[in-house]
């Protein structure tokens, strides 16, 4: 393959995507970043957020959970615990999850692990809602 960037999105359930793309945008821990072919090799961690890639001019959106991204000049391997395609997100479920998380955050004291869990649940729900709308 002389052109294009190979992208693999690996999850515990299956390979969520495998193919050639033009560009991929990853929600890294240090911030969102885009990868084109010919990028320097690096390994970074991925946080809860929106991942998108452009293939044949069309953009596809995923809501992803934590993991890591391995980038080389012609291949990007993203390993994450969950990845949901924008079409397969149930908006109502995500909205309910958001409301539950907000309710919990209001009740639980800050600086506890339960607060942190609720905060992450809220973040995940918010991302899923936003990706579902794309």
């Amino acid at each position, binding site marked *: 393959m002389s052109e294009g960037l190979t992208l693999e999105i*690996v*999850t*515990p*359930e*299956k*390979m969520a995507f495998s193919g050639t793309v033009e560009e991929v945008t990853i929600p*890294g*821990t*240090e911030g969102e970043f885009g990868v084109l072919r010919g990028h*320097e*090799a*690096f*390994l*970074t*961690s991925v946080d809860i957020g929106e991942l998108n890639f452009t293939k044949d001019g069309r953009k596809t959106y995923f809501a992803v959970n*934590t*993991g*890591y991204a*391995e980038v*080389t000049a012609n291949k990007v*391997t993203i*390993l994450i*615990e*969950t990845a949901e395609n924008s079409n397969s997100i149930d908006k109502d479920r995500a909205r309910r999850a958001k409301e539950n998380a907000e309710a919990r955050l209001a009740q639980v004291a800050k600086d506890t*692990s339960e607060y942190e*869990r609720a905060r992450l649940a809220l973040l995940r729900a918010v991302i899923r809602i936003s990706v579902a709308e794309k």
Partner: protein
Amino acid sequence: MASLKDIKRKVSAVQKTKQITRAMNMVAASKFKAAQSRMENFRPYASKFMDVLNSLALRVESISHPLLAVREPKRLRIICMTSDRGLCGGFNTNLIKATERFLKEKTKEDKEISLISVGRKGRDYFRKKAKIIAQRVDVLSKFDMTLAVAVSDDVITPFIKEEYDELYLIYNQFVNVSVQKPTLVRLFPLPSIGQDADIDPDTRLDYAYEPSEEALLQKLLPMYVHVLIYRALLETSAGENGARMAAMDNATSNCEDLIRTLTLKMNKARQAAITAELMDIVGGTEALAKG
């Protein structure tokens, strides 16, 4: 001899039972196939993750993470992973026996031990016999990585807070469809990773690590726990259904044997009844002829 009617009733009951066991066998077979393919699909994730984790660990000089902390093991916790439903042969009984042996052994050594139950069968058994500190029942029929993350959260935070010293996991390792082995592993403190993995140093790519090797490792270690627990969950699900297939298959052939025996008995009873009736008629005719 039991009456003909009773035997007929029994044959009908055993036939109905046979239909049920055959159906359960088929359902278990299809669930088993699904569980097996999930295990297959998990392999690329698990092996890629371990490659990255091991090569990262090799690059970091001294890994320090609370999950690696070695303390004197006075307070232990054990995750006991059984199935939710029974009728799967020795699957749960063997695991529960092995768990009990472990509990007895550690109690003899004067250690404080508490149980985390994943799966209803283990929970129901140990309810009054051990200290159950957390439980997740009726979750095995439909689960994904989120369950593994939830169970991990149950155990990671208290360990970091030093509420206990060692964590074990006991589950049925999937050997093949008819063999499942109760296996005990120590989860925390985590073993030293990467030290004895055979990674060819030349094939290790030189990456730039963002934010840093240490920070990445800190992030990946909890994910490692998720991988271990998720794998155990997959093996438990596959093993449970494989064991149920075998148990229901046995039950079905036992039913067939029983039906065969009962049918013979039924025919003997039927013939005896006919003979008795004939004797009655003949005797009656004789009596009439004489008188």
